[in-house]
């Protein structure tokens, strides 16, 4: 006796080919019914017996499309209604949207094959996508994910595309981003002044490739925003790009034509390969092979061994790289800390002094995103930047809701993100950048507004960092006033700690957990700049245990930009002359004077890295954020010996003595120890600090967060030492360990520590 069952599937199930998959599965089962998207996910009605319905659901869960992520599934019997066929029906969203936002997916192999096939109708078509691939979040205006709710809707489907869209047997059945050369997305090749230089669509990519090969700099609009490209083996072109971008040494990423080519140039582990080939298609930081490469490495990443490498993430990039067949520099299309550009007019306005040519297209981008950046420390994944392909879903959390929803967490300042909980899902935005920059602030604010509209929700509670001058705190207060929401501030390092606890679902743990939060700066509860913190977490309570020795914070933001100042402040009085030669006479007098009267103190480990980098004469004045730490890690990684020194050997651990570390390092320098060994031993010392701190205070679990934990060597050493001493170490794994995780950490702190919500 046939009954009617309703199946509800929630999770990342829209824009991933879920309905066509259900359609085909229903046909296979010979079932009649309906499938549609609604505000909660995918809703299926079938006429079946209980047994068949069960079997069907089991198949749905087991065979779901690769890019989908099912969070929950349920089925129940509903009043009988008879269906005569199985149909995909248009979306109905009658209530507030409560589903994940589908991230962008890199072009899939089937689509790649089609654009390369001579006689295929998508041969050479730069916007080829299917139900498994293509932009999603980037083109979203509204939800559910239907063509009419995306910017692809600017282009009507031609008859051929419509046919594909309607054909249940075809890969593009209900593919919302389906277009072809006849539908209207157009490439536009222009010179620096914004004048068109090629009309023929079929010749544009070839011509763009020629320009790059000739040594020109090209701004290219990918589906997530502009990239600036040039030949990676042309030193003059790269130097020119550095000069025009006024970016003297910050490393550039390189786009490779194929996995094989990457493998000839780099050591690639299976994890790294898997990541590069995944639908995220991020930039992965790789170790080059020890031989001469056809890359101008000194221009691409001055002073650094490892390079950021990626594969084409879109059909457009695939076609370009097929045509070029050489690695190219591919860096975000922006200027000076401004956000990635995604609009043609803006690109011409802002980049005409930087590039020689533009390759635009006329598909609008709703949510521009940078490329994500990932690296590995042995098998441990480190997210350096979470953006395209990873944002904005946060699926790895138990559903929240009720009192604990309608929350907006504003994050930090330099690596800004926001976290929004409009309903029972958590959304962690992509990385926006430094909020000092007006355009970043604007995009940050605008995206918050877009999210508010997408979910038709005004937050009841806004969470901000306790630093009063963070732009995110200032905007948060303004928003709170507009929306009449509560405002709660969360201390920076507590938020960092809470982010790892949240990622690993540790709030309910019985055992106490040591929190190690090391970063550059954050406003502490005692009016000092924190950054080398140890916390204890137990039963929904967090406490600061101890911290790195306080030293003077001098000259405001300048200290973070000049590693020599950190060295000056951290050296013992007796030894400070070691760095005198790094300063002019006036500077020396002035800073000595400032030191006498200074009140502001810091425990920053980020600044300790700066000081050590300066001591080892790697760098005295930075040109980009994180430069000193990167150079130091790079040097330490070149040490091949096994003779690691503990510069804190025999010291007590209730307090970490910065001056002792520097004194011992200085002695080793004088004694003629190699810089490589000293650098490596420094990181070894820091890893030991954590292990000893845990052992001496009887912690068996340690959670680490903060920008310092982007350091792959530190992580490797910690993982090794942790295993040896049976201490469980936890790091951020879904989010970045730097300030990108602050917004999520604020949320976790608010829910679990402030409000003691138990999980």
């Amino acid at each position: 006796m046939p009954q009617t069952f309703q199946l509800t599937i929630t999770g990342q199930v829209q824009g991933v080919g879920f309905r066509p998959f259900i359609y085909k599965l229903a046909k296979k089962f010979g079932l009649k019914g309906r499938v549609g998207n609604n505000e909660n996910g995918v809703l299926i009605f079938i006429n079946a017996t209980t047994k068949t319905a069960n079997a069907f659901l089991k198949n749905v869960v087991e065979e779901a499309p690769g890019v989908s992520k099912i969070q929950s599934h349920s089925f129940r019997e509903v009043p009988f209604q008879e269906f005569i066929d199985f149909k995909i029906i248009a979306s109905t969203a009658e209530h507030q949207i409560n589903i994940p936002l589908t991230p962008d997916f890199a072009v899939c192999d089937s689509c790649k094959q089609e654009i390369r096939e001579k006689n295929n109708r998508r041969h050479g078509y730069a916007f080829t996508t299917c139900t498994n691939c293509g932009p999603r979040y980037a083109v979203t205006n509204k939800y559910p994910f239907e063509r009419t709710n995306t910017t692809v809707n600017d282009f009507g489907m031609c008859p051929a595309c419509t046919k594909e869209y309607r054909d249940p047997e075809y890969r593009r059945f209900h593919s919302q981003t389906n277009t072809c050369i006849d539908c209207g997305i157009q490439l536009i090749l222009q010179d620096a002044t914004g004048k068109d230089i090629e009309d023929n669509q079929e010749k544009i990519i070839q011509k763009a490739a020629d320009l790059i090969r000739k040594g020109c700099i090209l701004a290219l609009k990918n589906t997530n925003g502009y990239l600036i490209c040039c030949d990676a083996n042309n030193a003059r072109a790269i130097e020119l790009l550095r000069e025009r971008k006024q970016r003297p040494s910050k490393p550039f990423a390189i786009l490779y034509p194929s996995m094989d080519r990457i493998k000839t140039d780099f050591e690639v582990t299976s994890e790294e390969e898997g990541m590069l080939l995944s639908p995220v298609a991020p930039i992965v930081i790789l170790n080059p092979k020890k031989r001469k490469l056809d890359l101008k490495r000194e221009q691409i990443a001055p002073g650094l061994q490892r390079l950021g490498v990626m594969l084409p993430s879109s059909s457009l990039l695939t076609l370009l790289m097929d045509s070029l067949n050489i690695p190219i520099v591919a860096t975000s299309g922006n200027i000076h800390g401004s956000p990635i550009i995604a609009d043609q007019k803006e690109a011409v306005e802002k980049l005409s002094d930087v590039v020689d040519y533009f390759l635009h297209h006329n598909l609008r981008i709703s949510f521009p995103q940078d490329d994500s950046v990932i690296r590995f420390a042995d098998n441990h994944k480190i997210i350096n930047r979470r953006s395209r392909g990873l944002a904005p879903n946060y699926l790895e959390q138990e559903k929240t809701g009720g009192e604990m929803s309608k929350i907006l967490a504003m994050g930090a300042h330099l690596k800004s993100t926001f976290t929004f909980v409009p309903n029972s899902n958590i959304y962690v935005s992509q990385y926006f950048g430094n909020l000092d920059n007006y355009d970043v602030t604007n995009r940050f604010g605008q995206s918050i507004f877009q999210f508010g509209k997408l979910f038709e929700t005004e937050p009841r509670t806004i969470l901000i960092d306790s630093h009063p001058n963070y732009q995110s705190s200032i905007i948060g207060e303004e928003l709170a006033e507009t929306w009449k929401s509560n405002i709660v501030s969360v201390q920076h390092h507590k938020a960092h700690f809470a982010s790892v606890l949240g990622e690993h679902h540790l709030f309910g743990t019985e055992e106490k957990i040591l929190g190690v939060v090391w970063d550059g700066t954050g406003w502490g509860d005692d009016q000092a700049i924190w950054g080398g913190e140890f916390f204890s977490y137990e039963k929904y309570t967090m406490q600061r245990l101890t911290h790195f020795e306080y030293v003077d914070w001098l000259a405001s933001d300048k200290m973070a930009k000049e590693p020599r100042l950190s060295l000056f402040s951290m050296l013992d009085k007796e030894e400070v002359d070691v760095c005198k030669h790094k300063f002019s006479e006036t500077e020396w007098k002035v800073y000595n004077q400032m030191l006498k009267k200074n009140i502001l103190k810091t425990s920053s480990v980020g600044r300790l890295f700066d000081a050590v980098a300066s001591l080892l004469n790697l760098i005295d004045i930075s040109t980009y954020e994180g430069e000193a730490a990167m150079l130091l890690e790079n040097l330490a990684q070149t040490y091949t010996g096994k003779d690691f020194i503990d510069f804190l050997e025999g010291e007590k651990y209730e307090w970490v003595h910065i001056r002792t570390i520097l004194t011992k390092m200085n002695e080793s320098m004088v004694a003629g120890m190699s810089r490589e060994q000293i650098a490596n031993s420094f990181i070894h010392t820091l890893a030991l600090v954590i292990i000893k701190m845990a052992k001496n205070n009887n912690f068996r679990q340690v959670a680490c967060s903060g920008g310092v934990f982007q350091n792959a060597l530190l992580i490797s050493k910690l993982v090794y030492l942790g295993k040896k001493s049976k201490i469980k170490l936890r790091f951020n794994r879904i989010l970045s360990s730097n300030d990108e995780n602050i917004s999520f950490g604020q949320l976790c702190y608010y829910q679990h520590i402030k409000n003691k919500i138990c999980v």
Partner: protein
Amino acid sequence: MPILDFDIITLGHGSGGMLTNKLLDSGVFDLLSNDILDERHDGAFLELHGKIAFSTDSFLVSPIFFPGGNIGELAVNGTVNDLAMCGASPKYLSLSFIIEEGLPVKDFWEILVSIKIACEKAGVKIVTGDTKVVEKGKGDKIFINTSGVGTINPKANIGKKNIQIGDKIIVSGNIASHGMAILSVREGLEFDSEIQSDTTYLNHCVEDLLNNFGTDIHLLTDPTRGGVATVLKEIAEATAVGIEIYQKNLPIDDQVASACELLGLDSLYVANEGLFIAFVSEEKAAVILEKLRQDTKGRNAKIIGTVVANHPKQVVLESAIGGKRVISMLPGEQLPRIC
């Protein structure tokens, strides 16, 4: 300096008794003598016509003597300039001291002389005043309060409500000099050459502009504490307009700029004393600037920004190397934000 039989000021000098009389008689009154003050009544009898501006300010600065001036001069110029910013011609000032026991009479006298000279230069009279002495530790050498009145220039119409989209923003001279002068002395910072405070009276210079350009001058304000950034941000918030400023146009002395750089300070937030900002009509901006630059007080004047319709309430700095920076009100000191 009168001959006195004491060389530091003690509590007795402020108690209304003999010592005070002696100090005031032989000191303040003699030196600042004028027809109104000489009446020595409980208050001053003034004759003023038309619209009046009235302003008050207290001055606490450490150190009290600094390169380019002292607290006395500052106290006169401060109130004179506040009145000038209302479009008024300052006429009469009150002057009150709170002196910490132990201040050398010599210092007090020097301050008084500076007050006298500053009044003469600005063309104002001290017409009433007061002196109190507090116990050691309850003050910081000397605090001065001045209040003043002046008559509004009939051609002037100064007010935030007059600001219009397109208005040009003129700053009358080099920024950040006063703050950096104070800071270098206070922190004992030695630079290659001494930085001088810019404290001065601006009333004549402003009057001249008002007489020539009247209502084309929409708003006048002096960027004292908190510097140019804070003042502009306050105006943007109060009037809900946007303000754009251009880093490459900001006038600043090289020495001051490198001192700011050295200390990691943003010159836009550093205090000024002898400086004003004018919001002027777009059409007249160029001629107003030209006129201002003929005055010694305005010879370094520059157009530094524009009132825009974009980003209401926001002040945005277009940086010299490209990119725009949000200028916010600093609730406290300049704290590091960089991670």
